């Protein structure tokens, strides 16, 4: 492929997780950091879509690789995983998986681009790579070596995801950018053929993909940004969707308000009120209840009236537990971060800046749930426990997935068994703390 005047030949790209990927737990317990959503697409899809002919290799935590490779729809393009040997031939663009990719910042000149102390991307030639590989045991060592060897370029304008709330903060802007980018290539419905939809704002900022179905009496408000309703999506009557927003493939909006800055991945069922939130995919939030400034994982089921607080009553900055430490987000509005396969009962409420692990079963009993809930716990009658253990949780997860025609693979099951052990110590410590306090 030819890319500008600098690149001729087959391009090679590597996308990597660095040591900060786990700052995005619980969302990155079950996927590499570059497979998180921001805007329309997942972080790594933005890079792959830009360089469509490039060969791709990925570097991620070992225990995620098998399940991730099974799930990715880009499997055919991925030539290598966690294999430094892949870097021996040709020049490479090596991009940090936490970078919210911006093609305008890429230069094909040999260098390491950094923001603060984080490597955003490196462009390295074959000779340099081979020299560095002689003394490097892993990619982090190679990139550190390259910083000294080829020099650094500061890229202060790059957006690097450090914490889960960064995805939310940048989601609206990213939606505007991506929808504009996808506008011309997407096969669209002729809006004239749709019955009684109302558009507030510019009609050309409303993109309905071929095969999406819009019921009568739906309001689209594009006055603050564009809206993309993807293939096979269904918007039921009496829904209002404000831009910028994205409704993913085969997702249904079943009435209610989808407010600005919201991304809904594929095969979700969403009702009630959702604002500045990312729902990763395959998740149900069918009924009334408010979700704001939150990131909800995959295969989550939020019972009716489940609600997240995203603003403290004293209007102070929200703090969030990240790997056991309470971090000041510096933001007034931060909701909840909920891991895959977690289920809430009717009326569940989450306090501002809550973190909920994977595969939890949360039955509320009046007050808000604890601000930090470790993975694989039950909360019932206000008491946290390990419930019936992992096997019944996996059985439920299989049933949930089968309802959408997807079978949990052996690799995914191995991933959850691994995570159950990885999170055991934290879970046991917190169950002890909360139970003593009568929670």
């Amino acid at each position, binding site marked *: 492929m030819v890319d500008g005047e600098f690149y001729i030949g087959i391009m090679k790209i590597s996308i990597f997780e660095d040591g900060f990927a786990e700052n995005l737990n619980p969302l990155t317990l079950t996927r590499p950091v570059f497979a998180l959503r921001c805007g329309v697409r997942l972080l790594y899809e933005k890079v792959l879509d830009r360089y469509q002919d490039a060969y791709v290799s990925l570097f991620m935590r070992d225990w995620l690789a098998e399940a991730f490779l099974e799930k990715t729809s880009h499997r055919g393009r991925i030539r290598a995983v966690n294999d430094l040997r892949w870097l021996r031939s040709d020049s490479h663009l090596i991009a940090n998986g936490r970078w919210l990719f911006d093609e305008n910042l890429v230069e094909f000149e040999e260098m390491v681009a950094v923001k603060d102390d984080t490597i955003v991307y490196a462009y390295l030639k074959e000779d340099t790579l081979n020299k560095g590989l002689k003394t490097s045991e892993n990619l982090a060592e190679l990139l550190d070596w390259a910083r000294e060897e080829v020099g650094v370029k500061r890229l202060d304008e790059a957006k690097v995801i450090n914490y889960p709330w960064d995805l939310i903060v940048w989601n609206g802007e990213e939606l505007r950018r991506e929808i504009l980018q996808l506008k011309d290539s997407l096969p669209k419905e002729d809006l004239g053929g749709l019955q009684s939809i109302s558009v507030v704002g510019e009609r050309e900022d409303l993109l309905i993909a071929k095969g999406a179905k819009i019921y009568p009496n739906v309001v689209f408000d594009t006055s603050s940004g564009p809206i993309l309703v993807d293939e096979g999506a269904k918007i039921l009557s009496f829904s209002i969707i404000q831009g910028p927003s994205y409704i993913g493939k085969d997702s249904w909006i079943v009435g209610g308000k989808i407010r600005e800055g919201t991304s809904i991945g594929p095969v979700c069922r969403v009702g009630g009120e959702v604002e500045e939130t990312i729902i990763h995919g395959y998740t149900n939030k069918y009924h009334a209840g408010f979700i704001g400034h939150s990131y909800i994982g995959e295969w989550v089921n939020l019972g009716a009236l489940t609600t997240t607080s995203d603003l403290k009553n004293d209007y102070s900055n929200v703090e969030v537990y990240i790997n056991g430490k309470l971090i000041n987000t510096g933001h007034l509005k931060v909701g909840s971060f909920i891991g895959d396969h977690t289920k809430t009962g009717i009326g569940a409420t989450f*306090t501002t800046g809550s973190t909920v692990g994977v595969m939890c079963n949360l039955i509320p009993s009046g007050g808000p749930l604890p601000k930090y809930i470790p993975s694989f716990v039950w909360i019932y009658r206000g008491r946290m426990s390990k419930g019936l253990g992992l096997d019944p949780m996996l059985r439920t997860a299989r049933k949930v997935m089968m309802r959408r025609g997807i079978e949990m693979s052996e690799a995914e099951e191995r991933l959850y068994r691994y995570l159950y052990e990885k999170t055991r110590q934290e879970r046991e410590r917190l169950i002890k703390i909360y139970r003593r306090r009568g929670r």
Partner: protein
Amino acid sequence: MSDVEERVKKIIAQQFGVDPGELREDMTFAEDLMAESIDIVELIAALEEEFGVEIPEEEAQKNKTIGEAIEYMKKKLGVG
């Protein structure tokens, strides 16, 4: 252990359902006891009642560890 230290630890232990003997001065309210802001408000009220003093929330917020809370109360009461 001074009288103030013992009484502060007793109140913290009651609030968080732990044995006073388990409390170490380097333990943090947020990370080791998983205290949320509302728990801190209740702890302040309990300490005010125990010692008969007023504790402004802005001052209380600065005390991240049990040791800092004990030192704060000692200073507040003019002891130790």
